């Protein structure tokens, strides 16, 4: 009824190619963003901002990055944690060596640095495919974490190897990192930053380069035959994906936890981000957000649920149950909809367009 596009005519190529071609979608998006920007920081409890929304946004960034590589270009990677560590430590070195550098610039530069590392570890992808490549990216994962852990230069010779984000202002004395930063500032900044980066990513995938990635994903030999250079396509995917992942690592260290050691970016982090894109939907920017929300929220919901429902269960059992339910839900979702939450969303929308008269 409300969700009907009858009467919306497109009179230009621009309108036809828009990311949100349906007017209701655009309105909904504007309302959602308005709510997220204005209402959430005003009304949400700090607990929600600090422990759910901030990590959700940081993870969304990482998931977008991995989705560009795995979902769009078809290169399975388990090195996400290592690349996040790159971003975090590059940002730390940059911001401590050049304190006058603006923090946003630091984030972008650390992403750029990670992109180079990504290209380096992407080179084997020209020869290795599929699961073999996935395991090969684990080499990057283990090597990078080891390197940041091992050489004290990376953490400015701190005796324990932990880096703490130095206080840096967004502008004036509105601090984004460090002690003075409030959850509201962190959240608002992340929201805008991630939204812009997501928009860039979405447009990338609709551009020439995104299309070459998808051609490589669908059949790399065929793509090569029609004139796509695998070298350029694969390495650009690695570079841009690492750029996003590196920034997310920097955000993790600087805005979410405030202090990290290299081990925080271990192999589990890689798997976590991989879950997000598979649950959310491979080859979908929206899916990256949905997947991140699912993976961040689910464990918290599960561990809060018994107390919220008034059940007296020991913490131990809750954690074990959490594992079981988490595993079972992953299997359940994959059986019901292997293409992820983004696909579910799409199906829902299709149905809504016809509702209430499906025939």
């Amino acid at each position: 009824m409300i969700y009907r596009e009858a009467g919306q005519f497109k009179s230009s190529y621009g309108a036809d190619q828009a990311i949100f071609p349906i007017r209701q979608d655009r309105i909904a998006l504007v309302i959602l963003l308005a709510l997220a920007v204005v209402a959430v920081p005003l009304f949400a409890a700090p607990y929600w901002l600090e422990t759910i929304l901030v990590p959700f946004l940081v993870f969304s960034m990482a998931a977008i990055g991995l989705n560009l590589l795995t979902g769009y270009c078809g290169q399975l990677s388990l090195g996400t944690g290592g690349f996040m560590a790159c971003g975090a430590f590059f940002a730390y070195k940059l911001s401590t060596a050049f304190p006058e550098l603006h923090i946003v610039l630091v984030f972008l530069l650390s992403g750029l640095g990670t992109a180079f590392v990504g290209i380096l570890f992407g080179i084997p992808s020209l020869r290795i495919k599929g699961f073999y490549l996935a395991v090969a990216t684990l080499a990057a994962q283990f090597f990078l974490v080891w390197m940041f852990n091992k050489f004290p230069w990376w953490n400015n010779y701190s005796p324990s190897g932990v880096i703490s984000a130095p206080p840096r202002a967004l502008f004036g004395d509105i601090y984004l990192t460090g002690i003075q930063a409030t959850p509201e500032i962190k959240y608002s900044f992340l929201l805008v930053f991630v939204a812009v980066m997501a928009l860039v990513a979405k447009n990338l995938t609709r551009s020439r380069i995104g299309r070459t990635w998808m051609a490589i994903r669908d059949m790399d030999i065929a793509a090569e035959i029609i004139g796509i250079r695998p070298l350029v396509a694969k390495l650009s995917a690695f570079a841009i994906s690492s750029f996003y992942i590196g920034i997310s690592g920097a955000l993790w260290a600087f805005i979410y936890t405030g202090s990290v050691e290299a081990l925080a970016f271990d192999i589990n982090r890689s798997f976590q981000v991989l879950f997000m894109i598979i649950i959310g939907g491979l080859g979908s920017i929206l899916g990256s957000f949905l997947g991140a929300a699912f993976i961040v929220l689910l464990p918290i919901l599960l561990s809060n649920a018994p107390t919220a429902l008034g059940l007296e269960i020991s913490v131990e059992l809750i954690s074990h149950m959490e594992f079981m339910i988490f595993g079972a839900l992953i299997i359940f979702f994959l059986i019901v909809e292997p293409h992820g939450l983004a696909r579910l969303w799409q199906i829902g929308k299709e149905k809504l367009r016809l509702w209430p008269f499906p025939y």
Partner: protein
Amino acid sequence: MPVRTLSIWITGVPLAIGAIGFAFSLMASLNPSFFFTWPYFLEVLSAGLLQGVMYSLVALGFVLIFKASSVFNFAQGSMVLFAALTMVGLIEMGLHWTLAFVVTAGVMVLLAIAIERIVLRPMVNQPHIIMFMATIGIFYFLDGFGQTIWGSNVKILDIGIPKDPIFVLTGLVEGGMLVNSFDLVAAIVGAILVAILAVFFQYTRIGRALRAVADDHQAALSVGIPLKTIWVVVWSVAGIVALVAGIMWGGKAGVQFTLALIALKALPVLILGGFTSIPGAIVGGLIIGAGEQVAEVFLGSLVGGAIQDWFAYMLALVVLLFRPQGLFGEKIIERV
């Protein structure tokens, strides 16, 4: 395996070992702080080879399942943990360990049936990455399930394997060469297991059917091989292999949550040997085991140590650059 390949291996391996040893001794003569003696080198090498067998035990389970169903079973690690937990739990209830072994094997078969029914069957024909993801789901479920039932305390699994160090060749070299008796037993068990698997695949009806399925699903179906039964059998065998690996690893380190993480040690073994080859898993295990021990002992101190985790992956990566399907994997042929 053709005679030519075999002879390359037989001559190549000692040569390679000798060359590495010689390179190290050269380094030692150039740099006095670099410690190297031949007996010590061989001792490290043998310890690494025995360690490698332990990796192979875990890698075998992966290979079995990948061969028959092209599923990369990430849950193998937690199957090892689950099997070991169940076995310890049964022993603690007063069963003799042989009986506990049999019962646990039964449990693993039940588990295989459940996995086939609940997870694999509804997901036939899905892309590999989705199946992979589903096994990660199994990984989490089993981790939680095992600990819910058996608790998360460290448990001791002792079935009487000796643990004392033995010194061999005491007459030949000064101080002798140290060999760990537990690792030796583990290596023998591993060898027996591989022999049994080889016989099973080569000479039994089900084994032949398994090989047919591994070669071509559709061709196998068309000659009347029941795919679903085969899957149950393969997962059961993988479960029992996991049990053996669990006993060995559990005996070494105690049975606890961390056991599930040894799957990560099996991955470089797998890619080095090739996902589809049982001999590959064995040889890959030996190469990775020996390579990472030698690297950690002789090179690790130069860069600060703890390099063996990534060294194994780097070693595998280098091999992949030359053979993208691993040492023994089937050649990947792609057509448009």
